[in-house]
């Protein structure tokens, strides 16, 4: 609802740029919230300040002092910005949950449409990202994925349910109490789950987690069923990877009608659609993305890389479709995107030359915590892990030590590998990146069978 109200004006000091504007500019700079929220907060606080100043001045206080008083009542600007940022994180978590619910609804509607269209042409279907776990094709072999469970839990405490499942699966239960407490997950929460037929243990764990206001996350590996928060597992599985995005950047640049911040738009796209609150640009501390020199570098939990790859694949399809258009169309597009006709710039021909590249990311072993092997099978190992071995793999220090970057040992000689250059072309022959979604053999140092669940998101 938007209504317009005519307000009797204060005696003065309402329009001209003043210290309120300056203070608001500082606040806005410090806010780690999405842009729309930033503007809303600014509007709300500005209105508050102007009205407060008006009241103080009506009470006989000089304008300068009134402004100072009104601003001081808001407290330290950095502290205020931090409080708003925390509130925004809560809002984003809620939004993500709602989007997940809407997603299920959309799939249901899609199914209904197919039924009604049964006799005619198949309706156009969207390309939908499916995580390996959702698709039931976890390449890690599934320590518990093949096991099923037939049980009914009626108002049982979560701790006993988990103990029962671990025992049934022959696993040791390891509970990260501190993380669960911090995440607001109570083990004495009462669970009711009535299975009418045997279900995979992984699915049962996900159903249990989904019952809680703050879902737990789990991981089954090395004979253990670990229960913690998704944040803990994510921090263990941070992966630095690079993606070749030159085609995509060119595509965005050539189709955005003069928009010159194609790399920024690509970064925003990734951040907007994949767990927005995790990214540093939104005040998170789990993930970072930068596009530099035709490469997109992403340091994020392993499970983020699959969706990223999928989004880039979609854009790559668009780039390839543009590249296959008739020459006249291409020329027109190229002229539009390069009005000065400067050769070697971001013309459309550049895109064409690179249209066939795949989006298999190059992964650096910058993994935190447990020795640098992504154990989270929710990531798409078929595309991530095979590229770990040869190409331009570089082992980064797990913490900022400032020393030389250690390199992985050559698997044949045991001596340090040759220096890896981010700009080096991909190796030929067997070291070529695997096509997207094509199963490839496990790497030598692959972790033991493991499967991880996030409990239906945060």
């Amino acid at each position, binding site marked *: 609802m938007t*209504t*317009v109200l005519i*307000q009797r004006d204060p005696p003065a000091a309402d329009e001209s740029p003043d210290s309120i504007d300056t203070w608001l500019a500082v606040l806005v700079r410090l806010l780690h919230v999405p842009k729309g929220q930033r503007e809303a907060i600014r509007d709300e606080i500005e*209105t508050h300040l102007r009205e407060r100043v008006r009241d103080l001045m009506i009470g006989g206080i000089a304008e300068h002092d009134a402004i100072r008083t009104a601003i001081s009542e808001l407290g330290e600007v950095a502290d205020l910005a931090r*409080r708003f940022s925390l509130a925004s994180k809560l809002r984003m978590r809620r939004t993500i949950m709602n989007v997940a619910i809407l997603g299920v609804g959309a799939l249901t509607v899609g199914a209904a449409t197919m039924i009604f269209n049964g006799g005619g042409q198949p309706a156009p279907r969207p390309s939908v990202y499916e995580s390996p776990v959702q698709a039931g094709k976890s390449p890690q072999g599934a320590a518990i994925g093949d096991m099923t469970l037939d049980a009914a839990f009626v108002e049982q405490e979560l701790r006993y349910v988990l103990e029962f499942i671990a025992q049934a699966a022959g696993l040791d239960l390891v509970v990260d109490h501190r993380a669960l407490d911090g995440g607001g997950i109570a083990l004495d929460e009462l669970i009711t789950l009535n299975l009418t037929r045997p279900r995979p243990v992984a699915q049962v764990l996900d159903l249990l987690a989904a019952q809680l206001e703050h879902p737990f996350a789990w991981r089954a590996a090395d004979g253990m069923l670990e229960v913690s928060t998704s944040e803990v597992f994510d921090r263990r599985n941070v992966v630095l990877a690079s993606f070749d995005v030159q085609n995509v950047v060119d595509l965005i640049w050539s189709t955005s009608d003069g928009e010159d911040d194609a790399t920024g738009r690509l970064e925003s796209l990734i951040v907007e659609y994949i767990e927005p609150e995790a990214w540093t640009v939104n005040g998170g501390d789990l993930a970072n993305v930068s596009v530099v020199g035709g490469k997109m570098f992403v340091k994020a939990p392993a499970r983020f890389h699959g969706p990223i790859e999928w989004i880039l694949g979609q854009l790559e399809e668009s780039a390839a479709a543009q590249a296959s258009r008739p020459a006249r169309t291409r020329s027109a597009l190229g002229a539009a995107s390069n009005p000065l006709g400067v050769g070697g710039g971001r013309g459309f021909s550049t895109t064409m030359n690179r249209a066939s590249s795949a989006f298999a990311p190059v992964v650096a072993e910058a993994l935190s915590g447990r020795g640098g092997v992504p154990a989270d099978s929710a990531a798409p190992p078929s595309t991530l892990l095979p590229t770990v071995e040869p190409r331009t793999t570089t082992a980064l220090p797990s913490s900022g030590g400032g020393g030389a970057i250690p390199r992985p040992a050559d698997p044949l000689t045991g001596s340090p590998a040759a220096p890896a250059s981010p700009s080096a072309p991909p190796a030929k022959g067997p070291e070529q990146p695997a096509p997207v979604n094509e199963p490839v053999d496990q790497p030598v140092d692959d972790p033991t069978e493991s499967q991880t669940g996030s409990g239906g998101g945060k």
Partner: protein
Amino acid sequence: MPGKVKPQRESLELVILGVLAEEPLYGYSIIKRVAARSEDAIRLTAGVLYPLLHELEADRLIASTWETVRSERAGEASAGRKRKWYHLTAKGRRRLSQRITAHRAFQSMIEAFFPPRADEETAT
């Protein structure tokens, strides 16, 4: 006038939900309403109130609408300032009811340990 009090977050939440249960209010008017109702004993500071309002909104306990406030001196072309009105949601109403019940139960339990007041002593 009672002395100044600095309410805890839970109490603040109760106070805010309480005043919004009566009618929709915007941030500054909440501050004034709470000060008036408590005879100036509870003074919400803007730096605490606004982030808390955003938290309550994220938690779907309150919802908001925007109003454009046009200044008398500003011309027709002026866009005007924006004022954000908050109102209680059904979830917020339920939360308020639960909080009031819990608060009253706690209060009566604690009062059982208080010595009787002077007027009550003389009555007995």
